[in-house]
């Protein structure tokens, strides 16, 4: 009796089941993904859509499709938004030059100081982080009162010791100095705490070995601390760069974009175009352009400062 022996066939389904993708990791990221999609992904895509129209959310009856005109305008020196947009972008660039170095440098110094052993260290750590918990309004109004020309704290003190004080918020570079100081005071705590955590991750044994080999503390800092902080440094630089590029609240509240639109940043300009002038299509195009610019900067940052780290 010949029985046909069927070749053993593995059903296709079970073959696939061997590679079956587990759902568990997706469940883990689901909550974040949901919020990311709702509050970042969707607005971003909708922003791209809006940027192709002359868009006013209160006038659905007048909302013509204009294609890439809103983008083309940004490169046409004769267009309405050209001057203001590039003025805003260059002001933002100027603030990045003012702010990134102190925001990273001072944070690193503070972190090193706060990493030492002395009584009351925990209190100092809290104090330096505390301003970060304030809203931009509180921080800005506070510093407006400190820097404002008539009756402000700084100028009162300077007058008191017989100096002729500058007009901080009404002149250049006083306005940038005031905004930079306010920003550093307000946000330095975040960078500090990142550096502090990273410092604590550096194995003590490295320092012990170095000191046995006779390295002084300066050499230890340059040859152990700095290299060990490399990846965190890239992260902090990137975050600081993006945060500085997003400057809006401080000039809005402290200088009104002045003097002569000198502190009107690109985000400030987007606010004026979109919210005050109701040119939302144009404002969306500006936002997308700035977002692409920042993504490129971030990419370059990681490429040049971050790559060798992983090997």
């Amino acid at each position, binding site marked *: 009796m010949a029985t046909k022996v069927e070749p053993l066939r593995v059903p296709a389904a079970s073959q696939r089941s061997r590679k079956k993708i587990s759902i568990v990791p997706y469940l883990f990221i689901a909550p974040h993904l949901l919020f990311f999609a709702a509050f970042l992904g969707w607005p971003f895509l909708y922003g791209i859509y809006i940027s192709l129209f002359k868009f006013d959310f*209160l*006038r659905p009856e007048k909302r013509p499709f204009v294609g890439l005109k809103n983008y083309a305008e940004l490169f046409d020196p004769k267009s309405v938004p050209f001057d203001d947009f590039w003025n805003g972008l260059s002001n933002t660039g100027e603030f990045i030059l003012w702010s990134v170095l102190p925001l990273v440098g001072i944070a690193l110094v503070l972190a090193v100081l706060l990493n030492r052993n002395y009584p009351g260290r925990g209190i100092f750590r809290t104090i330096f*982080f505390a301003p970060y918990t304030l809203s931009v309004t*509180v921080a800005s*109004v506070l510093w407006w009162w400190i820097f404002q020309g008539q009756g402000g704290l700084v100028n009162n003190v300077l007058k008191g010791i017989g100096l002729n004080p500058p007009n901080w918020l*009404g002149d250049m570079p006083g306005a940038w100095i005031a905004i930079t100081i306010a920003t550093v005071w307000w946000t330095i705590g975040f960078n500090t705490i990142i550096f502090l*955590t990273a410092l*604590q991750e550096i194995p003590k044994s490295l320092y012990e070995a170095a000191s046995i080999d006779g390295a002084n503390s300066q050499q230890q800092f340059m040859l152990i601390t700095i290299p060990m902080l490399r990846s965190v440094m890239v992260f902090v630089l990137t975050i600081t760069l993006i945060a500085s590029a997003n400057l809006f609240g401080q000039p809005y509240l402290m200088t009104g974009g*002045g003097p002569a639109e000198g502190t009107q940043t690109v985000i400030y300009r987007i606010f004026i175009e979109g919210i005050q002038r*109701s040119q939302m299509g144009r404002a969306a195009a500006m936002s997308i352009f700035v977002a692409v610019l920042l993504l490129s900067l971030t990419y370059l940052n990681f490429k040049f400062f971050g790559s060798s780290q992983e090997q």
Partner: protein
Amino acid sequence: MKQITHYLLPLLVVFSMLLTACGGGTATQPPAATDLPATEAPAATEMPATEAPTEAPGATEAPATEAPAGTVACPEGVDGMAIEMWSPFTGPDGDEMTALADRFSAENTCGITVSHVAQPDYQQKLEAAAAAGGLPAMTAVHATRIAALVSRNVLKPFGPEAMAVFGDDFGSEFPEELWSVGEIKGERYSIPLDVHPLIMFYNKDLFAAAGIEEPGTEPWTREEFEDALAKLEASGVTPLSLGNAFQAAALFQALIRQYGGSLTDEAGATATYNSEAGVKALEKIKELRDKYTPDIAGTGDPEVNFFKEGNVGMTFHGPWWISDLQKLDFVGFAPLPTIGDQPATWGGSHHLALTSDDPATQAAAAVWIKWLSDNSAEWAAAGQVPARQSVRDDPNLSSVAAPIARVVESANMVALPTQAAGLEGALWDQFGPVIDAFLAGDVTDAKAALDEAAAKSQQVMEENLSTYGD
């Protein structure tokens, strides 16, 4: 590794909760940069309490035709109506408006209640509410914004039921220019409430010491103004407190008309502030600043703070500073002097407009608007010149709002910009920075700078026309 989280994070959480709790309350009084007037004056003031005599019960039952002044007949269907009114009055003026709304709610015999809500970031709130379908019944609005808000479907025209409340001749009770601002394409969109002109604040003590006669209710002539500057300088005090930003831009708009020019042509279609008058105005402000005032600049009205210190002869600013400045005994109030060739000043105007098109809601709101207009002498106490001519002429005004009675003449010196959507921004956003740059000395050729700004204004105006035109 040290576990910093063990003690640091709990502390931070507590700290942040404390601090943000404080923050929420204090975040409402910034030196708001781009916001135009009307919100910055701090702290309320005492004012002579002029309780209007309560009507005898019989009076209100009289037929409408015989109703005494100040009462209105109740339109049908308004009984029990609750009206919500929004406004940008976040200063002491807001408290005054709330008090008036409460009094109206208690007194009116039509069963209407009004709740007043002052909104910081007013315009954004209004637009967001319009998009989300959460608009109140009515709102106070800047005259310069009416056209855009109409184009953008936020404001609704007064229907026949609402207009009936005002009666046929209501418009004739207002200066023609103010009344016509509220009419667009043959429909009535707003009722004028007040005017806020740029006025002069002066230091009575320093004037007396320098031998200057205090100004009256008419604006000073140029000779009187220049004489006062010279005398103040001779007496060894700072004659003038003049900053930049809002103050300089408002003064520029006043002076361009004092020199016989204007911001735009009559139709509001061409920017004309780069005229000879504009150049003169700009150069005059720089001259005054260079000669008579220390270097004051920045937002948040530092020039007023400087004046309050008591060592400066005079300053020019909006009447919303009155309620704060009248607490200082040395401060006097007067119309803006003639600095150029003829009297004129800058000013804005608040109007009352409807955001609901329901006839009954509109009628109820109209009853309140009428009452408010009849009683706008009391609104004057909050630092605004009433729009209604009969109220301006009321001898009672000087007891209710003495400083306003002294500057009431200024309201007739104001020329509101032509009603075109977005016009104020198209002009101000361009000449504002030029003024600041010129005053700071960064730009030296006033004519060239104004030409460039005016060309840009023209471009924006044409864009506005294509956006909001038919």
